[in-house]
């Protein structure tokens, strides 16, 4: 029985991996380890199932479902390349002149992010590929820009204040907002996820929610996560 389970697990992984592989083109210089990690992460995302989703999630991704997530991504991103994305600590980026392409850095595998956090980065970037929506450019963070405890939001690496920097969003449907909706719904409704994945999704979702600076949008999002849409 154990052998049978193992066999089917391998078969499922290979099936999902080959779908991801077929749908996404990788530049020849993408390191095999990086490519493998991306494919394995997509195998995980494609396994997600649920019978519920929030109304905002329904609008952006449909139901909380691996096939929806994968189709959403591959409608926007056709190929994956390698770049340093202009920073030693970047993980991924979109370069506007290259349509439907996402650029990854070696930090995708070097940094020790939880799996759902890795994926949220590329879903965030995938939203930026939407040229028809002005690539969902970010808004400037307000001045002053403070957290819930009233302290200035600043870069943990450099200590620079985030006030005035293009690292926030007004809308709930931009890159920060859609990543928040993605994470919070997985955290709340995924029925095939482990407790850890759900806890991670909720934790990182709260981080992305913090970048939504319009009080009305933020309030609507918090309310949205409490309203399940049933299949």
């Amino acid at each position, binding site marked *: 029985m154990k052998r049978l389970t193992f066999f089917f697990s391998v078969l499922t992984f290979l099936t999902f991996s080959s779908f991801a592989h077929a749908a996404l083109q990788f530049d020849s210089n993408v390191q095999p380890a990086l490519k493998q990690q991306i494919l394995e992460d997509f195998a995980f995302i494609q396994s997600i199932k649920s019978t519920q989703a929030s109304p905002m999630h329904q609008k952006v991704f449909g139901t909380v479902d691996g096939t929806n997530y994968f189709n959403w991504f591959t409608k926007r991103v056709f190929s994956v390349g390698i770049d340093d994305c202009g*920073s030693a600590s*970047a993980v991924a980026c979109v370069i506007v002149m290259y349509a439907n392409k996402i650029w990854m850095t070696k930090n995708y595998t070097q940094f020790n992010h939880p799996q759902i956090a890795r994926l949220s980065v590329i879903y965030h970037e995938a939203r930026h590929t939407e040229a028809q929506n002005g690539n969902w450019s970010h808004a400037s963070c307000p001045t002053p820009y403070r957290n819930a405890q009233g302290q200035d939001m600043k870069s943990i690496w450099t200590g620079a204040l985030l006030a005035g920097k293009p690292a926030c969003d007004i809308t709930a449907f931009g890159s920060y907002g859609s990543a928040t909706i993605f994470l919070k719904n997985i955290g709340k409704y995924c029925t095939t996820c482990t407790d850890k994945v759900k*806890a991670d999704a909720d934790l990182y979702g709260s981080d992305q929610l913090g970048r939504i600076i319009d009080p009305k949008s933020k309030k609507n999002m918090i309310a949205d996560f409490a309203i399940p849409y049933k299949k």
Partner: protein
Amino acid sequence: MKLFRILIFVFSLVALVLVACHFLLKPELAVLPGTSSEMHSANLSVSQGNVSNSTSTHIATQVPNPEVAEKLQVLAEIFKSKNDNDPRMDQVLKNLSEPVKLALQKQYSETKMEMRNERGTIAFLIGRELAEGRGSLTDVEFLKNILLEKPCLSLLDCSKASTGGSSEEEHLEGIHETTAHYPQLMDLRYLKQALESGNLTPEMKASIIATLEAARHSPNERVVQEAEAILNSVQNK
């Protein structure tokens, strides 16, 4: 003929030494967490039968413990696969016995600071036990020590702050920041859930509150903020 006899003697001697080494060194080479080779020297007194309750939990980690070895093996496989959605996370690594929890705590201390997901996963496993009513004072002490750790300054080298800075870093660094504080944030999440669960003994509740009070003096500013927020929410209820 004499030379031949000497050669036979030398070969026999070498063979004997090799066999002796094999048997003498085997237990050292086969180090598996949770087996006797992980014995803590501080606990030698347990063999004299003069142990308290707290040291009795250490006995279990001293003798070969298949349960501990199995759970740590599963965790090692999950870490290697980088698949946080491995169902064994909820099937095998739940309802943990005291020896398993102690072995996990030991593994945490032996895991590199930069292994944020691994360290955070161990904090999660211990924290989940606590929040679901299966925690002990030792677990709370372990979680307290995590909160008092120095902050991780860079994901590639926790001891060194990264240099430079660009708009690209600010763009998604919230995720990096969450990962930098990941063990602590997981820890706080489950301390909060344990307090909210309402199934704590007065002793356990007091211990968690004391841990959060101690976290107010953590060298990690994010921990200080989060601990303050939890204490405020508890006091307001």
